[in-house]
């Protein structure tokens, strides 16, 4: 992690952080504004299906903005010991299923499918349910958003010794050094092929949440395939069948 040397460095980091937050909030808020104005203009002429679609878009964009704000509050709370960080056994399969169903609209919008390879299916990790769910959601959203062509995103879960590795595999643009730094807790205002202009606030927040669960997050790339992996301590296995 980058060391802060003086007040000027701190001010720069704060500037970059605020810039990144503003950027990531501006897109969903702009969409809410555009769809709302369109709906207003088309009152009386739009079909019920069009109006329904518009409200769904507004709700989805509102969710995107609120999720980001909630993650910021959670990470701030972790730092200031006001958030719950107790770790309990959590079923990985259940959390992945939960997140996947929450993201169905997004998958549909991007025309993306998600495949699963979970071994063992009954695996439980020592984690905080909320933090795990948000971490899985952030990484899965990134993969859905940045994958290319028709290739599905793959979520692979496998046991390695006393740990469980949750990997999110996609064929999107290779992750920049700025994004990797973000996972380790440093945000840089640099152009990133993957994150469209600014470093990945989502990755930064995910890194913080995984660290709060005493886990690690890593990134590997080979043959145009990206693999983000969260590693958490495994508790025990349950047979679901």
């Amino acid at each position: 992690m980058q060391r802060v040397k003086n007040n000027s460095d701190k001010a720069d980091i704060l500037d970059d952080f605020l810039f990144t937050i503003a950027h990531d909030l501006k897109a969903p808020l702009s969409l809410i504004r555009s769809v709302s104005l369109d709906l207003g203009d088309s009152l009386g002429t739009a079909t019920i299906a069009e109006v329904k679609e518009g409200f769904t878009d507004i709700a989805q964009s509102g969710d995107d903005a609120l999720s980001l704000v909630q993650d910021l509050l959670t990470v701030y709370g972790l730092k200031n010991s006001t958030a719950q960080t107790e770790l309990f056994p959590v079923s990985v399969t259940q959390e992945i299923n939960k997140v996947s169903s929450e993201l169905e609209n997004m998958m549909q919008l991007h025309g993306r499918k998600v495949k699963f390879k979970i071994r063992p299916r009954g695996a439980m990790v020592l984690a905080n349910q909320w933090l795990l769910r948000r971490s899985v959601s952030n990484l899965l959203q990134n993969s859905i958003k940045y994958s290319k062509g028709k290739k599905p995103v793959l979520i692979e879960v496998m046991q390695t010794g006393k740990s469980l590795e949750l990997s999110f595999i996609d064929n999107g643009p290779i992750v920049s050094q700025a994004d990797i730094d973000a996972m380790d807790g440093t945000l840089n205002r640099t152009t990133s092929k993957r994150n469209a202009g600014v470093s990945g606030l989502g990755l930064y927040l995910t890194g913080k949440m995984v660290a709060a669960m005493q886990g690690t997050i890593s990134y590997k790339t080979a043959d145009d395939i990206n693999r983000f992996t969260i590693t958490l301590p495994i508790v025990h296995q349950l047979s679901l069948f």
Partner: protein
Amino acid sequence: MKYLVVDDHPKFAKMLRAALLAKSHKVVIANDGLDGLDALDKTRFDVVILDVYMPGHNAVEFLNEIRSYPDTVDLPVYLYSTHAQSVVLTDEQLQQYCVRGIYDKSKTTPRQLIDLIT
């Protein structure tokens, strides 16, 4: 008129498409700069509406490339971005790339944009 919309945000791309179709224009959507260049290789367009920050190939890379080919050197391009106000390209760059206009997604809806440029 035939429009090429290059935008990685599927919802904004969809709204632009709907607004253009409502005015009887033809539209092709590209999800990033590279897809946009592919589309330009295959088809001749009258206008490009271009997002600025995109994965893969951003607006500057896209503009650099199309301005280097004779058949697209004068192709009208409008920038449409969440960052239009805080951005991005200097006045000199805009002039250099022959950008016809730059609009912010937070101030101009897709439908308003199409009303302004068509």
